[in-house]
Every structure is written in structure tokens, then in C-alpha cells.
């Protein structure tokens, strides 16, 4: 029986090994100076260009999404731990944040499309910042859930001691609770960023797929997952090769974020 279960575990890990193997084998071949410094140029024959705009687009949109999702997410978690531990309102918020974690990413993209793209807010239809908002909706419940767990681990005695010394509530939160929970909060946020960086579906009809590099978040913007998705459907070898290289880049980014998150978690003074 032990060996059957061990074999099942081995079977479960075979895809991981195979994916990493092929990513490295086929992806490294596509990596060269041009890959990182030129934009995709839509040529079907000849040189298809690199993925510079995709990498920059991902960095820009995920960056903006983080700036939205992390403060809001931690804020909601703070509400849940400081004021919402009992009572119907806190339970309702907690419940619906949990519900949000199960929503498929494409539904978030659909929602942003209906509300922001169709009505043409901010000028154009598709825009980088709208894609970022879709990503932040995706990341928000992840940040909130993990932040709530960490904030609950801060001993109440710490909070009470600060209050007993006469500190106002906001001071207790700012100077006692948040600094104690900081490594855990950072870990949760990094994991949410890793999740957001890999999502394609929400970006398909909010930021769309473009080729040129743009630093203007008010225009359409490329992104690594979207670029990979576009290249996979092509029949041309060099485009497929570029897709593998882009996939390796994306997985490496996510892996680095995840490893960094775990290292930060180890420095936590809490459980």
C-alpha cells in the first residue's frame, strides 16, 4: 500500500518535472539579446521580433494592480480583525470575499469590459489600466484572506497593552499591529502578485493584445500571458519558439516571487 501511494505521488509530480524540462529546453533556445529588447512586430515570415513590450506591459499592469489590491485588501482584512470579528456585517464581508476567490478570472474580465470598456471611460475602449483593475479584482480576495490570517495571529495582548498605554486605535494599528504582521502581509501580497502575473483571461478584453511598447496605461497594452496565448495559435515555428521563451520568462518571474515570499515568511516573528 505504501508503494501504491508513493507511486501515485510520483505520478502527480511527473507533469511538473516534464513541464519544467520542456520549458527550459525549448525556452532557453529562444532567449537571446533580441528576445528581450525588441517588440513583437507581427511579421509572419522572417524575424518575428522579441517580447519586450509583453514583459514591460506585464510589469506595468501587475504593478498598478498591486498598488490597488494590496492597500484595499489589507484594509478590508484590518476591518475584519479589528472591528468585524463578531457580528453579521463582518461575517457577510468575510463570506463574500471567500466567494470572490472562486470566481473564474474570465468573469472578472467580462465585468470590467461591461463597466469600463464599453462605456469608454477615460477616453479609449481598451486600456492598460482597465486590465490592471481586472487583475486587482482577482488579487484582492487573495490578499484579504492571507492578511486576515496573519493579522489574527498578532496577540491581542499586544493590542491591549498599547491601548492601555493610551494610544488611539489608529496608532495601535499603525505602530503595533501592522509592523508585527508585516512579513506575513508581504508574503501574502507576493503570492497574490504571482497569481496576478500569470493570468491571461481578464486581460483579453480589457487591455487586449498589442504589439508596441507603451508606457501609457491609457492605451492598449501587451502582456506576457496574452502574448503567449497569441503565439500558441500560430503555425509558425519561430513564433512557437518565442512562446516557449516567453513562458520560461513568466514562470521564472513567478517562481522568483514565490521563493522570495517564502524567504520573507521565514523571518516572521509570529507562528
Amino acid at each position, binding site marked *: 500500500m505504501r508503494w501504491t501511494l508513493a507511486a501515485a*505521488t510520483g505520478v502527480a509530480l511527473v507533469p511538473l518535472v516534464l513541464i519544467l524540462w520542456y520549458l527550459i529546453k525549448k525556452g532557453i533556445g529562444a532567449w537571446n539579446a533580441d528576445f528581450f529588447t525588441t517588440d513583437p512586430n507581427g511579421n509572419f515570415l522572417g524575424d518575428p521580433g522579441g517580447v519586450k513590450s509583453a514583459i514591460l506591459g506585464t510589469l506595468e499592469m501587475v504593478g498598478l494592480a498591486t498598488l490597488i489590491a494590496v492597500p484595499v485588501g489589507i484594509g478590508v482584512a484590518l476591518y475584519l480583525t479589528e472591528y468585524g470579528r463578531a457580528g453579521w456585517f463582518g461575517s457577510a464581508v468575510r463570506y463574500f470575499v471567500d466567494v470572490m476567490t472562486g470566481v473564474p478570472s474570465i468573469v472578472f474580465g467580462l465585468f470590467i469590459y461591461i463597466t469600463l470598456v464599453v462605456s469608454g471611460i477615460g477616453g479609449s475602449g481598451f486600456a492598460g489600466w482597465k486590465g490592471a483593475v481586472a487583475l486587482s479584482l482577482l488579487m484582492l480576495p487573495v490578499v484579504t484572506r492571507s492578511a486576515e490570517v496573519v493579522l489574527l495571529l498578532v496577540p491581542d495582548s499586544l493590542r491591549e497593552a498599547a491601548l492601555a498605554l493610551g494610544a488611539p486605535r489608529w496608532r495601535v494599528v499603525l505602530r503595533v499591529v501592522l509592523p508585527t504582521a508585516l512579513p506575513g502581509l508581504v508574503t501574502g501580497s507576493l*503570492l497574490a502578485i504571482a497569481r496576478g502575473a500569470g493570468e491571461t483571461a481578464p486581460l483579453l478584453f480589457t487591455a487586449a493584445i498589442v504589439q508596441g511598447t507603451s508606457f501609457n496605461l491609457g492605451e492598449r497594452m501587451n502582456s506576457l500571458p496574452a502574448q503567449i496565448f497569441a503565439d500558441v495559435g500560430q503555425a509558425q515555428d519561430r513564433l512557437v519558439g518565442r512562446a516557449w521563451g516567453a513562458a520560461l520568462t513568466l514562470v521564472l518571474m513567478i517562481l522568483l516571487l514565490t521563493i522570495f515570499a517564502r524567504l520573507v515568511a521565514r523571518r516572521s516573528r509570529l507562528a
Partner: protein
Amino acid sequence: MLRWGLTGLAAAILALIAYFFIKLTSESSMAFERFGLFGFTFTNDWDVSRDLYGALPLLVGTLITSAVALLIGVPIAVATALYITELCPRRLRGPLTIMVELLAAVPSVVYGLWGVFVLVPKLRPAEQWFSDTFSFLPFVGGNVPGPNYFIAGLILAIMILPIVSAITREVMATVPQDHKEAALALGATRWEMIRTAILPYSRAGITGAAMLGLGRAIGETIAVTLLIGNAPTIGKQIFDQGYSLAAVIANEFGEAANDPIHKSALIAAGLVLFVLTLLVNLAARWFVNRGRRGKRAAAEPTAVAV
């Protein structure tokens, strides 16, 4: 002051979700008016060129691939969880846990890429052999195209494995030590102890974990789009091509931008998808909470637990 600020923020989130639902419903109302609620969801006819939108092939495709994913993924995930918590050498526990969680870190588009260029060509001969040898079975037989229901389901199984495994591990960790020791003291072998003390206790939790995996499988878009073949019909056998709710939205949204009824139909499909995942997740949470039997908050924030 802080209190009102934070309360306002939390209330804003609730309002956002409500707005979400209302907007989706209103935008899809055009399609539901034309075809009726049941007409849209259960008619087998998704024909864009004739402006006919019955979502049954999409629903069936979604359910078939998710069923395949559960059938393959859940047993392996439970076996993995059992092995890691009970049977493997202590020093392997950490590395194995990390490796299973790494499966969750791979983005779905990379799964799709790998599936299309590695899994499909490598498995096609085996699928063809299976289809030929077992064609007496219902739903088996015929020619095997590259992307099909089965291979989409297989990739989904790999993708839900980390979630199901992580939650199962959590649930199994709540089994009281006394139960396990009592079984062993009565002379049970390791496997008998698992079978009589751990598995019955964890049954509700494992069901919940499986349903969370189901919710993930239903909503997965990109990997399925690349691997299901995108044929808006109901396939006759397990290796046929099909379509899914999420895939149709991803594929057809570009061309639907200027066609109001098509767009409304796609949004309606999105609403059906949303409601489906909502129901599955609600049921899942109920099961998992029953399996945890008491307050036991998740001990660590993980990317997997979403």
C-alpha cells in the same frame, strides 16, 4: 475615524459584488429575453452565423471536462495527501509539499502551451489505440483529433491537483491522534488504520476539497480553450472535440464586439458560468467546514488555497 474608514472600505467591497451581479444580469437580459432562461441554457444549438444561441453544448463540454478532471485528479490528490501526511519519510515531507504547491504556481497559459505542443502529440497514439481497442464501450471509438475532451480534462486534473491535495492534507491533519493510535493499538496495519480511522473522518472534507477543485475546473479558460478543439457541438465520444462556457467567451468575444445579440449571449454564458461556480463553491465550503469540525483556521497563507 479609523473605524468608519475601514467599515466603508468593507461595505464598498460588498457593494461592488452586488453591482457586479446586477450588471452581468442586465447585459445578458437581451439574450435571455430572446431565447428564454431555459431556452438559452438548455438548447443544443450554438450557431453564430444564424444568430442562434443555445448553450447546451457549452454546458456539456464544461461538465465533461470537469468530470474527467475530477475522476483522474481527486484519487491522485488524495493518495498524494495520504502519502505526504502518513507514510513518507519525514525528511521528504517538506520537499514533496513544495513540489505539489509548485504545480499551482504554473500559469494556465503555460499549461495550455505545454499541453498543445507536448501532451497532445505524445498521447495521441495512445488515445487512438484506446479508442480502437475499447470501441465496444459507450462513448469510446472513432477517430482521435489532437485537442479533445479527454486531454482538456487531463490538463484540468493536473491543475486542480494542488488545491485538492492541500485541503485534503489540512483535513487529514485534524484527525485526532487518539483515533489513529486506538486503531493501531487494536492491531490494525498501517493501511487498515488509514482506512478505518482517517478516511471516514475526513470524508466530508475530502468531498469539499473535490468540489473546490471542481469549481476551479469549471472556470478554467485558457488551458481549455487551447485543448478542447472549440467545436460548438456535443461530441459523441470521449475523444471528440467540444466547447466550454469559458472557452467560448474567450474565443468569440473579439468578433462579438459589434454584434449586440452575440455579445449579450456571451455575457449570458458568463452569467451561467458565474452562477455555476458560485453554487459549486458554496456547496464545497459547506462540506469542508463539516470536515473540519470546529474552528481550525488555515495555518498559512498559500497561493494554493485559492
